[in-house]
């Protein structure tokens, strides 16, 4: 699209919104004489849509609208009104000449009447035919964490939430039923008030009314194109009729690092340096240079060590959160205003996170046929600090490696606070490493939504929605002198000087959807119910990235100075890149039919056209259907008193995925700049990704069988689901290395996820003053690659160790994604494995030789298993040694309340997944380039193999003496030619975490109502309270190599997790 067209569209949209605003403010409606109106609510104050309101003894009747409002013309003023609604006790009220009757219906103890938000509409929970989970905003707001996504941890069956590490803005990975794609993003589609967004991280949980997770294709197919990996629908709070309500919530919390990696003590560090010098350099010169004579080593005994991890990650973080909500309104117009601020000072130096959210919603009932609504949301996030690990960075710049490996004691010449060491030393001071990879990110999101709904005739509703989303992301990335970037990327004259990369990204998204709803209920008789929805939707998404590179700053500059004094560096690249537009045009329809409220049927169909594909491939067609049988409505169960509801659901459907970057169908030339070749730095070259004009939609076929139950008057309810998701024509960014390009997007192969989910809620005790309930969910998912199309199995490298370890993950047909590939550990080579003659150890015949992997073997070297029996350990002896997929995951929540006190404990767990503990490899290995680095205490003296006689300081070669020396040691020698990935570093990552534990107290109403306060609650919440695991690293819930989804579960230089204690209050008045 050209710029002019875009401009026009933008202008149109603003006009539309202004117009809507005008409409909202100017209207009147007339009431007739014998008319009664009012609002129907439930006990909690939520409005009830769909309540039947009938004049008793007469034929006229209406139903309440979406906001629970009704208006009925009466035949006489002495009539009585009957309010009935499934799941609620029917109420009869005499009119007695009143014009307004507001009713609160009492609930039959039963949760089936909840209205659930589904795609483009709502449905009663009891009428659901698809696999859907919900969570309410009030539950979410009780979990004091920064991100809404994180708050979902362990709450919903089949929804696997993992925060990749402990940083405040850490990527939250949400996978619904395992996710289908292999190399593409398997994140679900996030819909906020109908509008698709990239992530949930910019939404405040206090602003959320409820969230719905659509899991099977019968419910996601209405989102057609993008529903293949599940859909999460967020509905934000709307205005509410009635008296103004004010909510104020606030909490303050403190947090500390939980676990760290133990390192060698100073004397042990010095001992190891001596041994390293002897083994690695053959003499002690490099030792004596810094540590003095070996004979004087007792100098270091008892020297206090610098705990670098504590200094970098050890500060006490604090969290402050405030939110204020105001809602209220009249029948004609209601409003909701919400402001939230979240301020998180994290445990790592220089790391913090501040977010402000502001939202406003207005609803106006212009007439009894017309509803207008307008919502504005604004969020503003600022993140300071580079974190511990940035995807796409060189592993050499990972912060944790410096924090663990740095010398624990100051050694003149080796360690220094002077930043000059950045270019002269082996070691990078952890403070320098942190400052040199500093970063500032600012995100701003401005979202405007308007909708217009018109009841054309009885039962026919037209709705038009508009939305405009402005997203701005400013990223300042600083590379100080010690970074790989500074040594390699800048112009020759600026090599080694600080650089700043600035990316200013602007996204604009516009959406319009028009739907027609028709309810046939009056036309086809008592026993039948038929509802039809048809609709049309378009989304236009534009993106523009402005990236600038400034290098050659003065050597002492830090991030702040680089940002503010850009003229002190020399600008090298300014790249203003306009992405191709991402446009979507869709038509869809849905039919809901039920017979006698017993047999339910839903069918949806959607056609999606995407600008990411060409020609006939543009359009994808996604049908789905589901049936449900409410067994409990049958006569044979109707009278069974302990069964409230029992429903079986069966669904089948297709959903699509086009989640690839735009512009993959045509090879284009891109202008870039390089410093590698003399002469002009500018160059034109095709992109490294090869275009593919034949790309088409990826399709997921879902089959789901579910059982919903509600027993003992709602005391026990829940659901079971089994499913099979088959994803075909997988969109993969496929490696085509060696051809001239690195990858190409293709449709190939097939994966499947099969699984089982259960969620059960038990209300054990429900009394006026005390209660106890318990909810539990579990998900079992089996992932399998059915086919890779024309390709054979392939391996993937995480590259955490740069090039020292190549393929360490496998993608094999017939196996799941996430198989770890490496050697099998066989302990170490003992003296007895060798023949000794004239000072030389030669391996005995029959002992496998691992020299090509660990270096020319000697006693004490790491030993690996020879799998193919050729007596040689080489790359052919690698095998699958781990699987990152859990057997099952889930969570349980315990809620108890008594006399104003409430207690809630939320656990989550994962069983059977393996973690690739790369830290353990790195910090137990001293490679030839790793001199002067500290090791983890796994390699402490007495545990590690040693070759040095502690008395003479000489290398021991005599077999008997060497055996005696290492009699009590168990580990191999840390001195190795490079890092080796063996099953020793693969650990069981099963865990049970008490994620949050909350104790609250609500002051008695009598006490506070005199102050005009309707509710006052104080609470104390601990997060990450305890963790049960056998995993030896800091935390098993970790995944730090995320450049592709093919390498899950690697623990390398993760930002340590914290434990947090929060004190907060909820105030309503």
């Amino acid at each position, binding site marked *: 699209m050209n710029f002019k067209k875009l401009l026009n569209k933008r202008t149109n949209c603003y006009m539309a919104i202004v117009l809507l605003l005008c409409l909202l403010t100017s209207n009147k409606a007339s009431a007739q004489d014998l008319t009664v109106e009012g609002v129907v609510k439930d006990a909690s104050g939520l409005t009830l849509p769909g309540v039947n309101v009938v004049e008793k003894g007469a034929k006229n009747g209406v139903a309440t609208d979406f906001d629970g409002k009704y208006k009925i013309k009466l035949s006489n003023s002495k009539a009585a009104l009957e309010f009935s609604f499934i799941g609620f006790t029917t109420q009869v009220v005499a009119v007695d000449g009143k014009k307004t009757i507001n009713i609160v219906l009492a609930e039959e103890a039963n949760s089936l009447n909840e209205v659930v938000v589904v795609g483009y509409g709502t449905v009663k929970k009891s009428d659901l035919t698809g696999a859907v989970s919900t969570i309410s905003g009030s539950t979410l707001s009780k979990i004091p964490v920064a991100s809404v996504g994180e708050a979902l941890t362990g709450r919903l069956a089949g929804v696997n939430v993992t925060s990749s590490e402990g940083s405040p803005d850490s990527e939250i990975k949400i996978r619904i039923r395992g996710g289908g794609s292999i190399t593409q993003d398997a994140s679900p589609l996030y819909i906020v008030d109908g509008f698709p967004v990239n992530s949930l991280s910019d939404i405040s949980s206090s602003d959320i009314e409820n969230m719905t997770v659509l899991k099977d294709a019968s419910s996601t197919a209405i989102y057609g194109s993008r529903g293949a990996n599940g859909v999460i629908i967020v509905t934000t709070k709307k205005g509410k009729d009635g008296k103004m309500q004010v909510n104020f919530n606030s909490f303050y919390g403190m947090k500390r690092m939980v676990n760290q990696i133990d390192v060698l003590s100073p004397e042990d560090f010095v001992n190891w340096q001596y041994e390293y010098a002897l083994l690695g350099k053959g003499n002690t010169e490099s030792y004596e240079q810094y540590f003095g004579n070996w004979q004087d080593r007792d100098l270091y005994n008892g020297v206090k060590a610098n705990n670098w991890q504590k200094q970098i990650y050890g500060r006490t973080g604090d969290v402050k959160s405030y939110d204020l909500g105001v809602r209220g309104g009249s029948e004609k117009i209601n409003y909701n205003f919400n402001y939230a601020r979240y301020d998180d000072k994290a445990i790592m130096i220089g790391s913090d996170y501040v977010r402000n959210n502001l939202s406003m919603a207005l609803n106006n009932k212009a007439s009894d046929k017309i509803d207008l609504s307008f919502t504005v949301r604004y969020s503003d996030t600022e993140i300071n600090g580079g974190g511990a690990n940035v995807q796409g960075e060189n592993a050499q710049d990972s912060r944790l490696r410096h924090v663990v490996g740095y010398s624990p004691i100051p050694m003149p010449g080796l360690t220094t606070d002077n930043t000059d060491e950045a270019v002269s030393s082996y070691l990078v001071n952890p403070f320098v490493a942190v400052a040199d990879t500093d970063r500032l990110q600012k995100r701003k999101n401005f979202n405007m939504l308007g909708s217009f709904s018109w009841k054309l005739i009885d039962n026919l509703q037209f709705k038009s929605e508009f939305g405009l989303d402005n997203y701005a992301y400013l990223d300042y990335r600083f590379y100080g002198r010690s970074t790989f970037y500074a040594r390699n990327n800048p112009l020759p004259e600026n090599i080694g000087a600080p650089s700043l990369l600035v990316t200013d990204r602007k996204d604009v998204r516009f959406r319009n959807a028009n739907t027609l709803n028709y309810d046939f209920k009056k036309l086809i008789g008592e026993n039948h119910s038929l509802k039809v929805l048809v609709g049309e939707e*378009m989304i236009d998404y534009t993106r523009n990235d402005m990236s600038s590179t400034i290098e050659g700053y003065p050597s002492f500059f830090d991030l702040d100075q680089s940002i503010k004094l850009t003229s002190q560096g020399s600008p090298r690249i300014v790249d203003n890149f306009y992405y191709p537009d991402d446009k979507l045009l869709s038509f869809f329809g849905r039919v809901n039919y039920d017979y006698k409220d017993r047999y339910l049927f839903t069918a949806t169909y959607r056609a999606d056209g995407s600008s990411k594909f060409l020609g006939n491939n543009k359009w994808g067609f996604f049908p789905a259907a589901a049936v449900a049988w409410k067994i409990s409505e049958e006569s044979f169960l109707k009278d069974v008193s302990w069964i409230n509801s029992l429903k079986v659901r069966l669904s089948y459907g297709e959903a699509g995925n086009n989640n690839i970057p735009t512009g993959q169908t045509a090879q284009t030339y891109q202008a870039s700049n390089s410093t590698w070749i003399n002469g002009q730095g500018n160059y034109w070259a095709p992109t490294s990704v090869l275009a593919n004009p034949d790309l088409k939609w990826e399709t997921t076929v879902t089959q789901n069988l579910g059982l919903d139950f509600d027993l003992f008057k709602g005391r026990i309810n829940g659901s079971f689901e089994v499913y099979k998701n088959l994803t075909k024509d997988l969109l993969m960014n496929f490696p085509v290395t060696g051809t001239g390009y690195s990858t190409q997007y293709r449709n190939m192969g097939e994966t499947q996820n099969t699984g089982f989910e259960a969620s059960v809620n038990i209300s054990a005790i429900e009394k006026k003053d005390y209660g106890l309930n318990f909810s539990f969910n579990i998900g079992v998912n089996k992932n399998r690659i059915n086919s890779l199309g024309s390709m054979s199995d392939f391996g993937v490298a995480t590259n955490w160790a740069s090039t020292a370890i190549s393929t360490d993950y496998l993608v094999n047909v017939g196996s799941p994604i996430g198989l770890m590939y490496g050697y099998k550990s066989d302990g170490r080579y003992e003296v007895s494995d060798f023949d000794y003659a004239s000072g030389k150890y030669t391996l005995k015949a029959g002992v496998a030789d691992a020299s090509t992997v660990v270096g020319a073997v000697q006693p004490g070297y790491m030993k690996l298993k020879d799998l193919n029996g050729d007596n040689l350990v080489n790359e052919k002896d690698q095998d699958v040694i781990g699987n990152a997929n859990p057997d099952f995951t889930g969570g349980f929540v315990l809620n108890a309340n008594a006399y104003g006190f409430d207690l809630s404990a939320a656990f989550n767990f994962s069983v059977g997944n393996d973690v690739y503990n790369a830290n353990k490899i790195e910090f137990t290995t001293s490679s030839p380039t790793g001199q002067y680095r500290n090791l983890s205490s796994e390699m402490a003296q007495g545990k590690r193999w040693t070759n040095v006689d502690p008395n003479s300081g000489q290398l021991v070669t005599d077999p008997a003496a060497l055996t005696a020396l290492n009699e009590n040691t168990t580990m191999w020698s840390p001195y190795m030619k490079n890092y080796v990935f063996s099953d020793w570093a693969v650990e069981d990552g099963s865990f049970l975490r008490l994620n949050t534990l909350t104790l609250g107290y609500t002051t008695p109403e009598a006490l506070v109502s005199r102050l005009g306060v309707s509710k006052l609650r104080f609470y104390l919440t601990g997060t990450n309270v305890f963790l049960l695991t056998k995993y030896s690293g800091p935390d098993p819930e970790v995944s730090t190599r995320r450049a592709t989804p093919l390498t899950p579960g690697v623990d390398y230089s993760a930002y340590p997790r914290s434990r947090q204690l929060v004190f907060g209050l909820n105030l309503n008045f």
Partner: protein
Amino acid sequence: MKHKIIIAGLVLAGLFSSCSEDYLDAPAQSTLDEASIFSSPELARDVVNGIKITFGDTNSYRGRFLPFYGLNTDTEWYNSGETTSNDKPDLANYSATSTNSNMNLAETASGGGGQYWTSMYRGIERANKCIAGLRTYGNPVAGSELGNLLGQALTLRAIFYADLIKSHGDVPARFEPITTQSLYLPRSNRDVIYKQIIKDLGEAATLVPWPNETTASSSVEEINKAFIKAFRARLAMAASGYQQYADGVRRSDDPELSVANMYTLALKEAREVIQSGKASLNPSFETFWRNVNKEVLTAGGESLWEIPFASGRGKMLISFAVVHDAIDQYQTAANGIGGSAGPLPTVFYDYDQADLRRDVTCVPYVYGKAVQVNGKPVAKQELGIMNKWYFGKYRFEWMNRIVSNKDDDGVNKVYMRYAELLLIAAEAANELEGPSAAAPYLKEVRKRAFAPADQAIKVDAYVNALTDKTAMFKAIVNENKYELTGEMERKQSLIRWNLLKTNLDEAKAKMFNLQQRTGEYTTVPVDVYYKYAADNETLITYGLNRGENLNPGSSYTLLVDDKGVSSWNSLKDDKINSIYKVGVNPDTHQYWPIWQVLVAASNGQLDNNWYK
């Protein structure tokens, strides 16, 4: 009122429900179409720049091909060949496996990583697109800038292919931009590729100016006609030479690539360059190499073309230079850089003692530990041991710049020089026309290698005595050693002469002789003495040359180790045997295997089945 709202609502809804099919077209924006790019010389030049960038990719020519290809020969070897702590020696000792950890590197999605193969094929694809684009949208005739650019692109593509063939034998042939159908290709017969690139260079030579004919061609970093012709001559010799095919070592059986055809072509191209006067030998061998390190880029001299590394990219000196043990007055990059390969110890003794090229080529010392002088680290030359020599053609101490980056020095790779062209002319002329036709070229090469006083005997008499073809050929083979050691050109020459194993075996035998001081080495001294020149940096030695067996007196110090024992004479069996892996026949391992990541990504099209 109500109607107003409804109408307004409908109008709004109508405004945006555009259903036309072209709504879904979303063309790329931050780009230009090929028609615009290739009709504009300014933009097309940037496309050619894009081809050259691939030389500088991390693991391309910069980090892998130049540091490793060309070892080991009877003159050059990997200096840590006896090490078992890593698999780098395998790349040099004819035993590389496809999973060699230095080469079997995965490429990242953004095009980083990989190895020279991925970079070369990226360069080839860029060249293919450039050539096709120029032919379609430009008017690339001789004398025009677009014509010049077409010639450059053709030549760059030929360079990538020539280097792929010499390291792998048969490789996939891609001369058109990739389509989905041509994405995966098997190895192609290298004869097909040789014929194509020889033809391409023929065309390129008509399009590209002679050195200094245009402003751009006044730099050796710009491809010029003299280079194209010389390079074509080199390829002609290689294409018709012996090499390992699947069925063994033989010459090509393609009649077009016969010795008669190819030598004729090589001689013709060489003579055209020689007669053009557009290139010439530098009068001093040493000055030439000093200038290379000084980064003198003037075209029209001895250097025909250089890989144009920017000053922050390229590892020629970091890899091969005379070692600097510490940061000192000549470099502030790192401790212990340079010297990964060096000349065999025998090379020094193969030279005529009067040959001026010997001390430029073979260096027995390193720059040692630095001491602080006026607050700055200063090091001086220190003798090492006999089994470790360094290529003196690459010296930080000859540079104008101080290298401060431990990964890159930025000195260009001299891709071809005039002396090699003279030797090709001599070899082809000898074969086609006899020794007397070859003699002038050989004399020209030798003449600047000797002081004027020595020339009568060492040049004229020496060459005049070569009266039969075989003697002349042998002399050319030797001259190639004297002239080109350290430039990694010898491996391909030994292969095409079918002398690879023969000469490696001979070199091994000679080293054992040297170790034992038998045969031709009986007069080589065991002890070496040294003192420093007035600058207190330059080493003066006694005992390196044959016959320096007396004690030179008290002004000299005997080179000893830390136990006080004379230490120069160290040449161990395992080091000698590392010239090629014991039990491996170099003639069946003339090429590296295709690295496993590439085989794995080839969809079954590539294999190393013929590589035993």
